[in-house]
């Protein structure tokens, strides 16, 4: 009964992880690849340390809502594991695919010692159980090895590309990089993307 | 959600006006502080078991356990606790007598304890504002007289003890304490909390003060200001009950303020106190009562020796000639017991 001709991607993380930038880069790319793109973002006070998510929707002919209807996620890019699980609650379905940055970020209540962060393995297990497939990437570590944790969102984009779930044209993507980043950071981001791709493909 | 220790302390003691501002719950954690004669819970703590509740003199106490821990069984009386010796004393040093409240016994004993090395610091009450006591730790016996006068508002003595005991520099501490403060210190001996245990090991001497009641600072300030002007207060004294007044010493002489005017200023917590003689001390000291009348009696002290440590200190004072002793008139001990019993019974 359901007819769906769009691809629904959710990039989820914590304020400050670069989730808006990641969705913008992908969005820009797909505009150039001829798609109708709609991106919805959670903004507001939640940006300071709160959960944030971007809904990135690709459609062939008409623009769609910036909010994905319940249960209709196709791909979840979790910049933080617990945020990935949180998204499944509203947008997950047995066919959803999930790519997880395994590095955890503690909520204030956990940092304060009031609550506990759930066991990381059980979080990943729950994501795995409730999705069609799950990939894990220690994107933050790769980024830190490259010198700056800020690169982890681009590394995650590389991992996304490696899964072939999205029709990413790499040359066009690097053109977007060239227009998005200051010249001296273009190469670094390109490298981050490639490292992200490699981290995923090398394991399969 | 179950109440935390702090919640219970607030509900059962502070909100019931049973808090004497002794300071026991201050400086063992950052959640509570003493400020201008008030114990104030600043932040919420969700610990269900907290020492703050256990050591508060306003919470239920196992008196029997405390007595058997601190005193010789045969010395214990039901009215005034342990009594090894009851004497009338005063300082041999006239300077001390002049500066001190009555006979100067407390100042003499603290000074001696410091110079003999019984303690290396004493927690005494000075003043931080007019009539408002401030606790100070003193290590130099020559400073004792700065703190010699009676205070009429409870000082957060135990808070200062807590702070001092948790420092490494000090190993042996003496405290001059009101009955509630002495009880708080005594309750620490029963604590399971390793920090409290470590602290209380350093407590080597408690000199207790007889106490009928104390005043609330804000209220007292107001009444005194109305009568003599706050800035004119040089000192105060409460003579025996038949006079029924508070004496205020001013640059121009003495003013008597009727206790009727001061009754509303009494710290409400004192109404639930059953201990007049500071039973959980090594030595307790109060003003003497003599046939010769108040003019003579006011330069002497009633002194109750309660423990072996107290006995030793009194003996040293005697052998060094630092204290003068006077024969205890017949019936004085009975009168004291009656008065103390009266306080216990009034409450019941």
């Amino acid at each position, binding site marked *: 009964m359901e007819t*769906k001709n769009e691809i629904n991607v959710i990039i989820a993380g914590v304020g400050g992880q670069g989730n808006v930038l990641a969705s913008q880069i992908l969005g820009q790319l797909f505009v150039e690849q001829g798609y109708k793109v709609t991106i919805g973002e959670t903004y507001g006070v939640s940006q300071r340390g709160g959960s944030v998510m971007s809904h990135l929707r690709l459609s062939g002919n008409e623009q769609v809502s910036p909010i994905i209807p319940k249960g209709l996620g196709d791909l979840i890019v979790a910049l933080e594991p617990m945020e990935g699980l949180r998204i499944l609650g509203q947008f997950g379905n047995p066919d959803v695919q999930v790519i997880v940055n395994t590095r955890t970020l503690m909520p204030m209540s956990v940092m304060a010692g009031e609550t506990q962060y759930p066991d990381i393995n059980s979080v990943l297990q729950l994501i795995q159980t409730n999705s069609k497939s799950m990939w894990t990437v220690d994107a933050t570590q790769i980024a830190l090895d490259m010198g700056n944790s800020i690169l982890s969102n681009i590394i995650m984009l590389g991992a996304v590309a490696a899964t072939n779930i999205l029709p990413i044209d790499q040359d066009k993507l690097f053109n977007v990089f060239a227009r998005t980043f200051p010249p001296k950071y273009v190469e670094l981001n390109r490298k981050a993307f490639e490292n992200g791709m490699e981290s995923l493909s090398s394991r399969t | 959600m179950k109440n935390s220790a702090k919640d219970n302390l607030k509900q059962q003691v502070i909100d019931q006006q049973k808090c004497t501002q002794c300071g026991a719950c201050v400086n063992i954690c950052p959640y509570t502080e003493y400020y201008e004669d008030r114990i104030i819970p600043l932040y919420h703590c969700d610990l269900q078991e907290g020492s703050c509740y256990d050591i508060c003199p306003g919470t239920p106490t196992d008196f029997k356990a405390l007595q058997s821990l601190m005193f010789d069984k045969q010395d214990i009386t039901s009215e005034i606790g342990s009594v090894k010796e009851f004497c009338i004393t005063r300082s041999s040093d006239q300077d001390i007598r002049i500066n001190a409240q009555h006979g100067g016994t407390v100042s003499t004993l603290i000074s001696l304890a410091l110079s003999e090395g019984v303690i290396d610091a004493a927690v005494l009450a000075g003043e931080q504002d007019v009539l408002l006591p401030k606790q100070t730790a003193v290590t130099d016996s020559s400073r004792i007289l700065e703190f010699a006068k009676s205070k009429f508002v409870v000082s957060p003595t135990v808070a200062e003890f807590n702070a001092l005991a948790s420092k490494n520099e000090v190993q042996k501490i003496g405290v001059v304490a009101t009955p509630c403060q002495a009880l708080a210190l005594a309750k620490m001996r029963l604590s399971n909390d390793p920090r409290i245990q470590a602290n209380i090991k350093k407590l080597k001497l408690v000199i207790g003060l007889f106490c009928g009641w104390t005043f609330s600072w804000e209220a007292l300030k107001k009444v005194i200001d109305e009568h003599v002007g706050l800035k004119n207060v040089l000192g105060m004294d409460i003579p025996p009950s038949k006079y029924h007044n508070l004496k205020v010493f001013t640059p121009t002489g003495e003013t008597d303020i009727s206790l009727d005017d001061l009754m509303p200023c009494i710290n409400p917590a004192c109404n639930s106190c059953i201990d007049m003689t500071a039973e959980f001390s090594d030595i307790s000291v109060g003003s003497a009562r003599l046939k010769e009348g108040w003019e003579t009696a006011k330069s002497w002290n009633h002194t109750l020796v309660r423990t072996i440590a107290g006995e030793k200190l009194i003996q040293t004072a005697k052998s060094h000639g630092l204290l003068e002793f006077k024969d205890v008139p017949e019936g004085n001990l009975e009168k004291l017991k009656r008065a103390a019993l009266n306080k216990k019974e009034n409450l019941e």
Partner: protein
Amino acid sequence: MNMIVSNKTGETALFMGNEAIARGALEAGVSICAAYPGNPSSDIIKALAEVGPEMGIHVEWSVNEKVALEVAASAAMTGLRGLAAMKQNGLNVASDFLLNLNLSGIRGGLVLVVCDDPGGISSTNEQDSRLFAKMGELPLFEPSTFQEAKDMVVEAFELSEKLELPCLVRSVTRLSHARGNVELGSLSTNEVKPFFDRSKPFINIPSPTNAHKGLRQKFSKCREIFENSPYNYYSGPENPELMLVTSGAGLFYSQDAVRCLDVSKRTGILKVGTTSPLPEQFLSKHLIKTQTIIFVEDGGPFLEGNIRELCAGRPEFSNTKFLGKLTEDLPPVGELTPDLIIDLLCKKLDIEFIPRSAEYSEAVKAAVQNNTPERGSGFCAGCPHRATYWAIKKALIRDGRDGFVLGDIGCYGMGAGPAGYQQMNTMQAMGSGVGIASGMGLLEQFGLDQPVIAVCGDSTFYHGAIPALLNANQHGSNFLLLILDNDATAMTGFQPHPGLGKDAMGRQVPSVKIADICRAIGLEPEIQDPYDLDTTIKTIIRLLREKQGAKVLILKRECALVAVKSKAPAFSISVDAEKCLGDDCGCNRFCTRTFRCPGLIWDAEKKQAQIDQAVCTGCGVCTQICQHQAIISEAS
């Protein structure tokens, strides 16, 4: 290359709704753009300010929204084009001017963009600003797509100039803050020489009624124009079982619902882009196609009420059912979502939508419930507001008279929550804390014996607190005003304000110091660094007790997010592992649990406090709160 100023007509850009609006203004040849920051509207002026010098236009962050609208109107009074942008609360501030300007009219083009925030995602209220268009009898455009967000602004300028009336464009968060494809038009090359024609003054007296007659005529003319607007259209079967009548982002949700449920043969969508004045003939023509109409619109029942008014008493609609917020078929409060429309359509069309099995739903619900603690928002590491609220809390408790704090919105508004130890007790309009305090400080004569504190930020002080403080001093109100001066309009994205010495386009401009304004009012402020907790606490207590009248304490410390960019941390902070007794301390994790700084964290393995060096800004405030002085700072 910034696409906002791209010359490539016909090219497709990915624009945020707000960027599309900004691009529209450039295509329309705007000369002056003014706004006061406030989400979801802030990005419009941000985008324009970045290209202002290059495009030869004036772009400013005004002191408040009323002034912004006045500045933008100046262009339109001289034949140029002006744009003002604001959030819903801002329009309330500007409304006094707007509801005079509607009568006096303008010459050039004036477009007022108002971005509503249904659900109050980044606001203290939710309101439907479209009512101002009805009240002011002004043309109103409601873009539904990113393309329309751009195109309608161009159209609104044309119409404004034609009718000599300000036009409103109403966006919502889900359009302003979302992104989508926008095909570019050409940038304007029009050059207009401004001229103020003294023979045609903008004055409504002696007869505002006559002016109102003129407005009515323009409004009628506008209705005729809207009858043929391309922004109003119907799509669907000729006689649908039901029709979704929608405006704004409601179109997205309606289309998503129809597509998800595959009911395009049973359901029509009547999309209205010009919602004031309503194109009555256009609407009548389409509404007649069905007997069940569902209104899908964000905000209040604006279309719903107006269309029902239009159909009332007309026999052709006597059997029509109107469903929406008035009938509570859709929630009358909060934000619309596609799910709400899907659910309602399922109910009305008697169908089911099962994107996933019930078992799956239950499984993920349980997984989420037990494993995803909320990420509450809080002050950043090093935020001076944290220190300020810590001091306020301690000062009020010590003072002991149950004092309270009157405030408003800004980062410091988080003082109402756990981040600020629940210290703020009121939060309404910008500067309202000071205004309420001006009254509250007079209530002692009626027996109010609690001390009064008002707080406001630096940007808020300029925006809305100055008249209140002036009033307070004139009437001898007794309270303490704390101005939390962090040299930033931080909440909305660091826009300059009159105290900072630079403007929206980065030019050096004169700055006006808050302390100087206070002095001019007749109040000598004290200035204190909130990082010094002890002195701040003592100063607050002293000022609360000291004397009658209004007292001002400026708590001055640069926003940590700004400071971290310009200078190295003053201190290197660490936890002395010897001194921190951890869970054995008995402090019950006081520093992490109570102080709540993201840079000071509980190390669950070592069972000790720890500084997260990646987050810590070296402010050193936490070194003042440990009773064992276990948090130490070294000059770095």
